[in-house]
C-alpha cells in the first residue's frame, strides 16, 4: 500500500548509506550496553561495610565431600551429587553464642558441630554430641539440618535430612543428643534437600515440613536409571514433600495428604511465613524444573495451593529467602535461578509480597540482581546496619576442568523430549567438565529505588567456591551480620561483617511460652520514624540452611526505636515501646 512518496528521493546507494548509519549505530549500542552501566556508582565504592575471611582464624576447617552413587549413573554423578553442603545456626548449649552445624555427604565423612567459644573461635564437638557420623551405607548421606525446640524443653533439637532416612535428634543437655527418629515415627526414606520447622496449627508445638527432590529411590542400588526429571520446565515426577504434625508426646504424624501439601515437583527449598496476614503460617516452595508454589494455610485445617502470580514463570528455583526488601513492612521472597552467559538467563526473582491486598507476588528483579550466575543459597541481611536489607547470594555449580564446559552438552539434553532425559543413562557423560564453575559470590547493596548493585569484590567476598548454603548470624554478639557459606565438595567459609560503626542496631532474642519456645514463625515489625521493617524467626530458609533465630535490625542513624510489634505464632500480639538499642534484647512471650 502506498501512503505517500518522497518528492525528491535520493539515489539507491545514498538511501542505503543513510539507512546504514542507524544500522551500524544499533550494533555499536548493543555492544556498549552489553558492557554494563554507563556510569559506575559511587555507592559501589562505599557500601558501608566490609567482609573479612575469618575461616581459619575461627578454627573452622570443615570441608564438604560429595556423595558417590550407583555406578550406573556415574556419567552424571557430578550433577546428581551436586548438593549436600548445608549449614545451620543454633545455640546448642544455650550459652548465648551461636553455634554452627555443617553437613557432609560422603560415606564416612563426618558432619561438624562448631561450638562458639565466645572469643571468635570455634571447636568441633559433633563427635561428642553424637551428630558427626551420620553418613553411612544403608542410612544415606546428609543434605542439611534444621534446628528447633520440638519439645519446648529449652534446648534446640535437630532434624538431619538426607538422601536416605530422616534423622531426628533430641538435645539432652546441650552437649549430647539422642536419636529419637524411630520413636518419633520419622524413620522415612526421602531424598530431601530441605526441611523447615513451623507450627502450622498454632498449637505451640513445632511441626516439620520436609521437601523431596528425587523420588524415594535408593541412589546406591538403583533398579532403573529413569530417575531424572521428565521436563526442564514442568516436571512433577520428583519426590513427594511431607508434612509431619507434632503430636506432643515425642511422636509425629504424617498429615501430608490431609493438609494437601504433597507437591511432587522437584523442591529444593522451602520457607514459611504469614504472607497474607491472616495469622497462619504459609509455605513457599522453590522448585527445580518448575514454577514456585505457594501453599496458603487455611486456619491450620488445610493448605490451598494458590497461583499468586508464581505460575507465569517456570524456572529452576534453587532457594528461597524471606526479607523485607524495601521496608514496606512485608516479607518478600527472593528466589534464585540459573543464568549462564550466552546460554540461558532464567533470572532470579525478587517477588514483592502484595498478598494482603492484591493476592499476588510481584517480580521486580532486574539488572544485576536478576543474574547471579548459577545461584544457590541466598539470604537477606542488613550488613551495613543502614536500615535496609542487602542480599548475599552463593553460586557456582561444578568447578572442575576450567577448559571444559558441560553447558553445550546441557543445551542438547535440555532441548530433548522428557522421555529421553528422564533416563540418566541418556545424558552425555560429564567427565571432568565444569558447569558454571568458579563463580564469585554476589553481595547486592540495597539502594532502594536506585536498584541493587553487586559490591562483592569491594567488600571482600572474593572466593570462587561452589557455594550452596548461606546462613547469617551475629556470631560475636556485636551488632554485625556474619555470613557462613557451606561450599560443595570444598571448604566452608566464614565472612565476618564489619559494618559502618556510625549506624545503630538492635538484636532480638525471642522466647516463646504459649508459642513454641524457639519462637519459630514469630514476626517482628520494627517502627522508627518512617521506617518499617519486618523480620521472621526462621525455621529454615535459603538452601539447606537456617539462620540465627535471633533477629537483627539495622537502624541507620536512628538513635531510638519507636516500637516493636511482635506477632507470636500463638496469635498473641505484643508491643514493646522504645526498647534499648545497640544490644541484643531478650523478649519473652506474655503468658496471657
Amino acid at each position, binding site marked *: 500500500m502506498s501512503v505517500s512518496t*518522497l518528492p525528491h528521493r535520493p539515489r539507491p546507494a545514498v538511501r542505503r548509506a543513510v539507512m546504514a548509519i542507524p544500522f551500524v549505530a544499533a*550494533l555499536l549500542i548493543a555492544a556498549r550496553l552489553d558492557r554494563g552501566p554507563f556510569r559506575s556508582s559511587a555507592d559501589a565504592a562505599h557500601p558501608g561495610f566490609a567482609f573479612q575471611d575469618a575461616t581459619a582464624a575461627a578454627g573452622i576447617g570443615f570441608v564438604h565431600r560429595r556423595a558417590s552413587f550407583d555406578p550406573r549413573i556415574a556419567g552424571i554423578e557430578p550433577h546428581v551429587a551436586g548438593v549436600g553442603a548445608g549449614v545451620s545456626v543454633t545455640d546448642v548449649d544455650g550459652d548465648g553464642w551461636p553455634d554452627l552445624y555443617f553437613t557432609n555427604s560422603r560415606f564416612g565423612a563426618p558432619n561438624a558441630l562448631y561450638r562458639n567459644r565466645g572469643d571468635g573461635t570455634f571447636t568441633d564437638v559433633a563427635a561428642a554430641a553424637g551428630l558427626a557420623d551420620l553418613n553411612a551405607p544403608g542410612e544415606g548421606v546428609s543434605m542439611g539440618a534444621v534446628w528447633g525446640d520440638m519439645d519446648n524443653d529449652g534446648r534446640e533439637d535437630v532434624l538431619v535430612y538426607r538422601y536416605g532416612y530422616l534423622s531426628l535428634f533430641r538435645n539432652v543437655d546441650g552437649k549430647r543428643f539422642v536419636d529419637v527418629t524411630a520413636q518419633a515415627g520419622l524413620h522415612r526414606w526421602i531424598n530431601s534437600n530441605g526441611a523447615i520447622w513451623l507450627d502450622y496449627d498454632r498449637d505451640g508445638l513445632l511441626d516439620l515440613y520436609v521437601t523431596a527432590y528425587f523420588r524415594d529411590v535408593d541412589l546406591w542400588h538403583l533398579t532403573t536409571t529413569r530417575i531424572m526429571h521428565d521436563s526442564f520446565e514442568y516436571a512433577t515426577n520428583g519426590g513427594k514433600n511431607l508434612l509431619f504434625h507434632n503430636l506432643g508426646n515425642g511422636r509425629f504424624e504424617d498429615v501430608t495428604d490431609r493438609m494437601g501439601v504433597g507437591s511432587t515437583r522437584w523442591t529444593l527449598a522451602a520457607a514459611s511465613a504469614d504472607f497474607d496476614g491472616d495469622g497462619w503460617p504459609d509455605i513457599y516452595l522453590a522448585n527445580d524444573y518448575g514454577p514456585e508454589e505457594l501453599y496458603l494455610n487455611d486456619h491450620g485445617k488445610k493448605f490451598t495451593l494458590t497461583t499468586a502470580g508464581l505460575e507465569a514463570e517456570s524456572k529452576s528455583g534453587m532457594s528461597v529467602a524471606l526479607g523485607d526488601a524495601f521496608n514496606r513492612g512485608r516479607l518478600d521472597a527472593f528466589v534464585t535461578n540459573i543464568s549462564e552467559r550466552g546460554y540461558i*538467563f532464567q533470572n532470579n526473582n525478587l517477588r514483592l509480597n502484595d498478598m494482603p491486598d492484591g493476592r499476588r507476588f510481584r517480580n521486580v528483579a532486574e539488572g544485576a540482581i536478576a543474574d547471579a550466575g548459577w545461584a544457590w543459597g541466598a539470604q537477606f541481611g542488613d550488613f551495613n546496619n543502614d536500615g535496609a536489607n542487602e542480599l548475599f547470594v552463593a553460586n557456582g555449580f561444578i568447578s572442575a576442568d576450567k577448559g571444559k564446559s558441560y553447558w553445550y552438552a546441557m543445551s542438547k539434553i535440555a532441548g530433548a523430549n522428557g522421555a529421553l532425559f528422564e533416563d540418566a543413562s541418556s545424558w*552425555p557423560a560429564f567427565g571432568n567438565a565444569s558447569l558454571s564453575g568458579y563463580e564469585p559470590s554476589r553481595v547486592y547493596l540495597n539502594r532502594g529505588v536506585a536498584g541493587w548493585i553487586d559490591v562483592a569484590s569491594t567488600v571482600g567476598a572474593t572466593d570462587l567456591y561452589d557455594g550452596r548454603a548461606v546462613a547469617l548470624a551475629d556470631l560475636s554478639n556485636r551488632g554485625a551480620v556474619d555470613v557462613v557459606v557451606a561450599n560443595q565438595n570444598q571448604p566452608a567459609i566464614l565472612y565476618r561483617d564489619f559494618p559502618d560503626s556510625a549506624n545503630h542496631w538492635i538484636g532480638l532474642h525471642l522466647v516463646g511460652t504459649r508459642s513454641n519456645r524457639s519462637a519459630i514463625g514469630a514476626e517482628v515489625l520494627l517502627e522508627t520514624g518512617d521506617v518499617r521493617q519486618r523480620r521472621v524467626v526462621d525455621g529454615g530458609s535459603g538452601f539447606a540452611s537456617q539462620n540465627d533465630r535471633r533477629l537483627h535490625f539495622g537502624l541507620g542513624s536512628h538513635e531510638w526505636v519507636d516500637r516493636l510489634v511482635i506477632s507470636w505464632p500463638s496469635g498473641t500480639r505484643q508491643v514493646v515501646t522504645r526498647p534499648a538499642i545497640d544490644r541484643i534484647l531478650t523478649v519473652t512471650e506474655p503468658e496471657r
Partner: protein
Amino acid sequence: MSDATRAIPAQPNAIVRSWQLGRKIDPRYLIAGLITLVLLVAQFRYHLVGGYQRLVVALAVCTAAEAVLSWFDRGKVVNLQSAYISGISLTLLTKPQGAALWPFVIGGFLAISSKYVVRYRDNHLFNPTNFAICALLLIAPDHVSVLSHQFGNDLATNLVIWTFGLIIVARVGVVHVTVAYLAAFLLLSTVRATVMGQPVLPEIAPVTGPMYQLFLFFMITDPRTIVRGKRPQMVVAVIIAVADQLIRVASDTGVPLPTAFNAAPPLLALFIVGPIAKWLDLRRAAPASRVPAPAPAPASA
C-alpha cells in the same frame, strides 16, 4: 438410467476440503498463522514469552522500522506481515538478562534494517530474525541468550507444531527445504555421534526443541533469502546442516568458539552459509536480469 444409478459427483472429504481451502489462502497468511499458533501455544501453555511487554516492544519496533524504512527506500509502506513474523520470532527466541527490553528494541531494528542495508542486486541476503539473533548473541552475550529449552519437553505439543508446520510449509512450497535439512541433520548427527563415541539420542534431540522448530519453519525456508530452484535449495539446506555439524564437532572437541556457536549452532550455520549461498545465486544470474523477489512473496521470519 434410473435416478438410483445416476452418477453423483464425489464429495471430497474434510481433509481434502481443508487442503483446497488452504490453497486459496495467500501463503503469507498461512505463515503468519503458523507463527501465531506457535506463539499462542508457547505462551498460554508454557508462559514462554516472559512478559507481554517484550512482545509489544518487538512488534512495535519491527513494524515501525519496516514502515519507515520501506517508505524511505521505496517510496511506499510495504506489507507489514514480514515484520509481524519477525517480531514474534524475535520475542520467542530472545531471552534477555533480567527484565531488559533493549535486546528487543535493537534486535527488532537490526532484523528489519538488515533487509534494507545488507543487500546485493536488490535482494537482501540475511533472514531478518536470524541476523538479529546472531548479531545479538555475538556482540551482547552477557545480556542475550537464545531459547534453548523445550515446549515443556512434551511430545503432544511437538506433534501439533510439527504437523501444522509441515502442512503449511508444504502449502507454501518449501517443504523440501525443511525435509532436506532434517534428513541431513539426523543422518549427520548419527554419524557424528557414532564416530565420536557418544550416545545418538542426545545428539538428535535438539531438533525437537522450539529453537529448531522456528529455524526449520520460518528461517531456513524464507522465500526471500533462499536460492532459486528446488535442487539448489535442497543442496543449500544440506550445506547448512553440514555447517551445523561442523560447529557441533568443534564444540564437542572443545574448540574455543564464541558462546553463540555452542548455544545456537543451527542459527549460526544459517548466518554463515545463507548469505553466501544467496550471494552466489544472485551473482550467477545475468546482470541484466536483476533478480526480482519471488511473487507472491510469502512472509518470512
